């Protein structure tokens, strides 16, 4: 019996063979075709003798990436997607940690170094014998890894979050049930595939038979066209970062396009959703379900949720709600005890959704995946999120702040320390500090040293994805210090 995520595509391809699985611009694929192409790729991987090995998928966002994810899963290996727009230096760091045994790519130029590559070509892939895939597939169980997703790391090296089939299956079971997703639904995908919000779109679609529309990126810069796209394609469900929802609301696009008849669910995750814009959306879709999901990559996309069930003033915090099924939330104070009502503590998670740790990084894994301090009877790991939360009078969780210098910027999780580590490594930089301007949503870098501003910018761009490059660099003759010799971040924060 097959007990991994590929069983869902088998079932859906059998039940709805001709239903559209993915729409990507002018291209589309049915569930039957998706399964067939995934098996073609799986066969090629199996022929290379790979099993339970890391495989990198390096290609621009497209339906082909999903074919690759599934092909790797059918072959009994696990994938990691490498963003092709990412600077080569960062790609290199990820490759060094992942050590992929195979790189699947559509790129013609060689960006892959020494690793074995497979030149992906959707049109020419054919299956010679499905039997070849069966053995490895049957030997892949739910406890095996499905993917490794890289997030920002404070030491300058991205961390690879490992996620098993079981974590994704449990999460998607919960999504399907909680939001009542059916074959007649369709997803409007915004999240890049290197961002774990996309897990919900991809795998809920595969499990339920709902179609997934990959929304062309350009539409996010023209909100009326974006909403028309949702309406014309009958998109019923979106799961976007709040930034995208805010832009649509602020640019008054909701008044231009009637969405109430088609769009049923608006889910969001990744940063704080302001009530002002949320209320604009709710007014526009009065019968819609709006849900605030919360969760770091280490907990398979989301671990708490709040379905908006009452009115909120602009200044009120929107709850992150309660634990999703398969997870349990522990809010621990500094003494590792559960907090009392109104008391702030660190949100810690246990359950089947938590990652198995960081790939090839025992040290970082041990820091945040720790023994549950409330359980001294058997080994049980919890993940310490570093997010401070408290309960409100309804027993719902409220996000308070970060414990460290991690931020959420345009939906991406960023360790400011990663930028600082990188800049500190430059010649002619004596000291630096990164601050996040919460009002203008900008990363600001303060530097001390003789380095020329243009050189710093060029260096950052060569090493960081565009969303991590500070939008302002301020050169100072001296950085303010606290009494105990640390950079006075508070003072810098106040100066911006």
């Amino acid at each position, binding site marked *: 019996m097959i007990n991994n995520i590929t069983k869902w595509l088998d079932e859906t391809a059998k039940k709805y063979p001709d239903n559209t699985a993915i729409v990507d611009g002018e291209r589309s694929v049915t569930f039957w075709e998706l399964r067939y192409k995934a098996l073609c790729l799986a066969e090629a991987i199996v022929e290379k003798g790979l099993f339970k090995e890391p495989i990198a998928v390096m290609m621009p966002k497209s339906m082909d990436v999903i074919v690759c994810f599934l092909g790797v899963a059918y072959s009994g290996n696990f994938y990691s997607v490498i963003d092709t727009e990412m600077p080569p230096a960062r790609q290199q760091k990820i490759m060094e940690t992942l050590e992929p045994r195979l790189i699947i790519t559509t790129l013609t130029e060689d960006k892959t170094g020494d690793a074995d590559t497979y030149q992906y070509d959707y049109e020419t892939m054919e299956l010679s014998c499905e039997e070849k895939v069966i053995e490895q597939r049957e030997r892949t169980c739910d406890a095996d890894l499905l993917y490794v997703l890289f997030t920002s790391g404070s030491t300058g090296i991205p961390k690879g979050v490992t996620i098993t089939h079981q974590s994704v299956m449990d999460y998607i079971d919960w999504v399907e049930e909680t939001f009542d997703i059916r074959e007649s639904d369709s997803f409007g995908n915004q999240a890049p595939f290197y961002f774990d919000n996309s897990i919900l779109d991809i795998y809920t679609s595969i499990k339920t038979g709902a179609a997934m529309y990959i929304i062309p990126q350009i539409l996010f*810069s023209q909100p009326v066209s974006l909403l028309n796209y949702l309406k014309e394609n009958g998109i019923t469900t979106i799961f976007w970062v709040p930034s995208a929802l805010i832009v649509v609301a*602020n640019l008054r696009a909701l008044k231009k396009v009637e969405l109430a008849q088609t769009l049923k669910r608006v889910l969001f995750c990744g940063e704080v959703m302001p009530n002002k814009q949320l209320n604009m959306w709710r007014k526009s879709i009065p019968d819609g379900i709006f849900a605030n999901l919360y969760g770091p990559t280490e907990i398979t996309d989301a671990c708490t949720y709040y379905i908006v069930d009452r009115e909120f003033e602009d200044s009120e915090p929107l709850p992150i709600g309660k634990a999703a099924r398969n997870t349990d939330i522990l809010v621990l104070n500094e003494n590792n005890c559960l907090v009392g009502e109104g008391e702030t503590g660190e949100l810690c998670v246990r359950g089947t959704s938590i990652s198995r740790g960081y790939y090839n990084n025992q040290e970082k894994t041990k820091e945040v995946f720790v023994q549950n301090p409330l359980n001294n009877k058997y080994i049980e790991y919890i993940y310490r999120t570093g997010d401070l939360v408290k309960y409100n009078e309804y027993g719902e969780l409220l996000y308070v702040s970060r414990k460290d210098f991690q931020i959420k910027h345009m939906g991406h999780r960023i360790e400011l320390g990663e930028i600082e580590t990188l800049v500190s490594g430059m010649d002619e930089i004596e000291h630096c500090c990164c601050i996040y301007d919460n009002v203008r949503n900008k990363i600001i870098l303060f530097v001390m040293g003789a380095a020329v501003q243009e050189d710093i*910018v060029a260096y950052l761009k060569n090493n960081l994805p565009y969303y991590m490059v500070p939008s302002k660099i301020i050169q100072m003759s001296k950085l303010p210090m606290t009494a105990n010799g640390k950079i006075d971040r508070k003072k810098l924060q106040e100066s911006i």
Partner: protein
Amino acid sequence: MKEKIIVMLNELNEDFKNYQGEDLLKDHILDSFAIMELIAKIEDTYEIEIDADDIMAEHFKTADGILELVEKYTGNRI
């Protein structure tokens, strides 16, 4: 008016100063969030309200494109 728009673009992203390319969106000088901020600044400065239908990527590829859009509303009055 173009100078003012250039100042606004510089404030949004310092990279604009040295930008030689032909597509601010493609090259990540502007993203959807920056467009939102830019529109808010333009509307405040020129006391206009830009119709959401006019917020199309083609207007935001270059400073001249943005200028053309603003002039549609101000009628070259500034």
